[in-house]
């Protein structure tokens, strides 16, 4: 087994009716990622429920409560590998908590598979999934036109759906879209090509997942290094050691580079890039490293190292798109906490500009933000944050909102 594979995280968007669970089950089954004991457990359950064939969708059922209710509650993660790549699937349910769960799963994804039932074509929910994919900035979109077996494997029907979808996607600014026809039930064009879609010359779904280029999914140009932890051993040979530990969230850094520390704005030069496996000359996102500087300047957790050629903004007020995750609506009269990179600060929402109807994409000027709502807001924070536009840099453009009274995570924010 190859230990030099890349890791791809993807999610699937679609309702149970679109065959989403069957598609995941089929990917796992046909790539031989289902274990015999798992298979025998779902075989037994399928039999108990009086089904003729093994229901592969049962593989993605998780908790006891949802087995009892026959629904999926939350985001579950599945793992499989082919000789080319290791995959993490974020499996999101399709009921009314959808927005919250999809945004959660999408936040770490390289790719989304948007499922369409070939009989029904582009629906309201397809638009909703695509809007959320664009909002969260998932780098790659695959439109999977499923249930081709139910439309006699019609090339004309497939082309009709793709044309309609691509026009809509372009309006959203989604450009990295690839379409693929398939039948999850039969197994056509997932892992194996099958014999029914011979008019289609493109890659199978698995080939797409294995080959999509993901090196540029992180921002490789604008160096961002939020300090997580300051290491000062103060013992023996490390008496004078002072290292700034963290993960490079974007760009790269080399020994000898001049760096600026924000928000203070002081500059210094990188003396060493330390790792447990030895010092490096250059380090890249998303490596976790320890930086040492030429001179002693005061730096602590929450500060960010950047370079002069790509400076972020340092702001106490900014605008963001917010996805509200909590059952308790947003309260403009209250203070919340914002956690952004490694800095946590008190904040208030100074205005709620509009809410987006995720089904029609219309904007509504309403001052209420409930669970699953997407809203455009303005925030004021107590201390300056080092920020980027989310669409330019996911890591320094994203934040979570915490309710101090309950300590719950109540919103996800994307700076715009």
């Amino acid at each position, binding site marked *: 087994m190859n230990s030099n594979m890349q890791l791809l995280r993807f999610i699937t968007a679609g309702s149970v009716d679109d065959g989403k669970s069957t598609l995941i089950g089929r990917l796992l089954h046909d790539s031989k990622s289902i274990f015999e004991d798992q298979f025998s457990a779902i075989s037994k359950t399928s039999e108990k429920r009086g089904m003729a064939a093994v229901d592969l969708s049962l593989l993605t059922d998780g908790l006891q409560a949802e087995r009892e209710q026959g629904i999926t509650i939350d985001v579950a993660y599945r793992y499989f590998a082919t000789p080319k790549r290791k995959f993490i699937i974020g499996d999101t349910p399709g009921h009314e908590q959808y927005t919250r769960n999809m945004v959660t799963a999408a936040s770490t994804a390289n790719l989304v598979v948007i499922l369409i039932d070939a009989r029904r074509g582009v629906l309201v929910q397809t638009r909703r999934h695509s809007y959320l994919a664009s909002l969260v900035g998932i780098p790659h979109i695959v439109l999977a036109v499923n249930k081709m077996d139910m439309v006699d494997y019609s090339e004309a029907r497939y082309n009709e759906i793709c044309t309609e979808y691509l026009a809509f996607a372009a309006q959203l600014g989604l450009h990295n879209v690839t379409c693929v026809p398939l039948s999850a039930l039969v197994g056509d064009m997932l892992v194996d090509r099958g014999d029914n879609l011979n008019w289609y010359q493109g890659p199978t779904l698995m080939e797409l997942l294995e080959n999509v280029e993901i090196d540029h999914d992180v921002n490789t140009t604008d160096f961002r290094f939020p300090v997580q*932890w300051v290491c000062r051993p103060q013992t023996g040979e490390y008496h004078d050691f002072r290292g700034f530990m963290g993960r490079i969230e974007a760009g790269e850094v080399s020994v000898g580079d001049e760096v600026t520390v924000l928000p203070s704005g002081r500059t210094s030069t990188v003396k060493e890039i330390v790792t447990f496996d030895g010092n490096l000359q250059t380090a890249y996102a998303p490596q976790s490293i320890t930086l040492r500087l030429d001179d002693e300047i005061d730096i602590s957790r929450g500060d960010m190292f950047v370079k002069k050629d790509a400076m972020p903004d340092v702001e106490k007020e900014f605008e963001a798109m917010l996805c509200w995750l909590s059952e308790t609506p947003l309260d403009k009269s209250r203070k919340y906490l914002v956690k952004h990179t490694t800095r946590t600060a008190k904040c208030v929402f100074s205005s709620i500009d509009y809410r987006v109807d995720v089904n029609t994409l219309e904007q509504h000027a309403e001052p209420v933000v409930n669970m699953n709502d997407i809203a455009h807001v303005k925030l004021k924070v107590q201390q300056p944050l080092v920020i980027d536009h989310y669409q330019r840099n*996911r890591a320094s453009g994203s934040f979570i909102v915490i309710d101090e009274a309950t300590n719950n995570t109540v919103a996800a924010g994307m700076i715009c």
Partner: protein
Amino acid sequence: MNNHVFTHLDALESESIHIMREVAAECKNPALLFSGGKDSIVMLRLAEKAFRPCKFPFPLVHIDTEHNFPEVIATRDKLASDLGERLIVRSLEASINRGSIVIKNPDLPRNPYQSVTLLETIEEFGFDACMGGARRDEEKARAKERIFSFRDEFGQWDPKNQRPELWDIYNTRVHPGENIRVFPISNWTELDIWQYIGRENLEIPCIYYAHEREVIRRGNSVIPVSDLVQPKPGEKVEVLSVRFRTVGDVTCTAPVESTAGTVEEIIAETATTRITERGATRMDDQTSDASMELRKKEGYF
């Protein structure tokens, strides 16, 4: 990423280091659960990568069932001492003597009781975060668990009331008396663990490698003969070449038949195996489809 190949192991390692540093920076009194098993040995290496040349900003803690394989305990003690890190051991025996655990049959598996001693240890030291080596690929209930998994005052996990986890921005906040369990290797699979053990050349207990052992066949499992497990009338003791995929309670951890004597051979077997790690080796998880979920709700990690 210019000339630099960033593999899946690099990605997983960097993610785990990032998580451990967040715990160290944001939690007041964290601990790292360390049993001497392969997953927790990987956790130790990740902690070295995260914090060296500093000392770990947390102690290692082992909840000892006293039903352990002696080879595992020996490795546990050796690694902690080689690293020069503080190891706290709390045993189920103390909870039994205190009366907080009542055991009806001393020979039965003790995993269900670990939760009690773990919660008592959390209280004794006032830990607000315990890092564990659980992986989401191990079990269905784990597949939905957060990396930062919030527990109430009774140490309980409510699967319907978990905090959403977005990007890699972790909410580490707890009220006094509450705590979180943190799983830095959530996204690793059994195969990733073995590939990493190979890449890092990690020392693991010898019973993970194939060796000859006296076993009894019970149902689909082979059970190792030990002080606690003796053949019943009619059962035959065989000597087989076996290795352990997990090393838990001696009375309920079954080895698999194998001749894999090196990490490379284990990786080859793991890549082609058709049975899950727990399905093959943990008899206590086979009692019901939901047994792990029930244990987790009671405070099991």
